[in-house]
């Protein structure tokens, strides 16, 4: 018997996987990114449907519940990604300024 939360997650993951496939087919998403995001959503499904598997993985590292381990790891990954993004935006900002100044001085 599926729990409501499992049904919701299944629908959500299915929509996203369909989107990734569509974006990849229309060449808006590179293969590497497509694989990465497909993997992310596949993991979500594993977590939702095979809770015992995750529990078995989490106990050896000292975390009681599998779902807790997932939350910890996710938060860490997200922080890392946000950091990466902000670095990238900073770099872009500098490049834009450089361009704008060059254009102003050329004319």
């Amino acid at each position, binding site marked *: 018997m599926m729990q409501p939360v499992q049904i919701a997650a299944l629908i959500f993951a299915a929509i996203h996987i369909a989107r990734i496939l569509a974006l990849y087919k229309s060449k808006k998403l590179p293969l590497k990114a497509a694989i990465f995001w497909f993997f992310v959503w596949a993991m979500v499904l594993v977590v939702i449907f095979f809770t015992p598997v995750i529990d078995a993985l989490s106990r050896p590292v000292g975390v009681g519940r599998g779902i807790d381990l997932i939350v910890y790891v996710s938060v860490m990954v997200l922080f890392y990604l946000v950091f990466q993004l902000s670095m990238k935006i900073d770099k872009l900002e*500098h490049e*834009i*300024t450089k361009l*704008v100044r060059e*254009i*102003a*001085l050329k004319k």
Partner: protein
Amino acid sequence: MNTWIVIAAYNEEHSIGFVVKELAKAGYRNVVVVDDGSDDETSRIAKQHTKHVLRHVVNRGQGAALKTGIDYALANDADIVVTFDADGQHRVEDIPALLAPVKKDEVDIALGSRFLKKDSGVPFFRKIVLKGGVFLLWIFYGVRLTDAHNGFRALSRHAAEQIEITLDGMEHASEIVSEIRRKQLRYVEVPVVIRYTEYSKAHGQSSWNAVKIFYKMIVHRFSK
């Protein structure tokens, strides 16, 4: 001596004409206006009064605009570069006092200070914010000043070449102070009067911006 006045202007169509005209009237021929991506008529009006108008295609902030103007002045063999505000809050008659110590080669950079005169006319709350800034500049960069973020300065060619402005926004003013320290530049503060008109108040920096500038200063301090 080849003196250049650099003005960064963002949406200053109401004041830029008056400011540049006043400078011309006082005999300052080399005035470069950097229109920092204004949406209004700033460029067109500036062009009526000076042939040196540069335009940033998109708004990048005062630091970036000043840097563009300073580079332009240096490329045109400037011996001294004066940074001047576009909103009319700086007085043309204060320029000679700023230029004097730089011309005599006593200092590399002269900074305008609104607090060296007894009656500065600075609104009370603004004064507290500015003095807080002065304290932070001292703590952070070890440069003791009486005024913070006063955009009125005269730089020798040497100083203009040495000072690296990497921060695009208003934080560049703190960056200049940090560069004074880093590059071991000689500096002096010169009393100037800031005109707090309704217009300049509306167009100037809100005191809340000081908090944002402080934050960026911290980030900048620890990323170097």
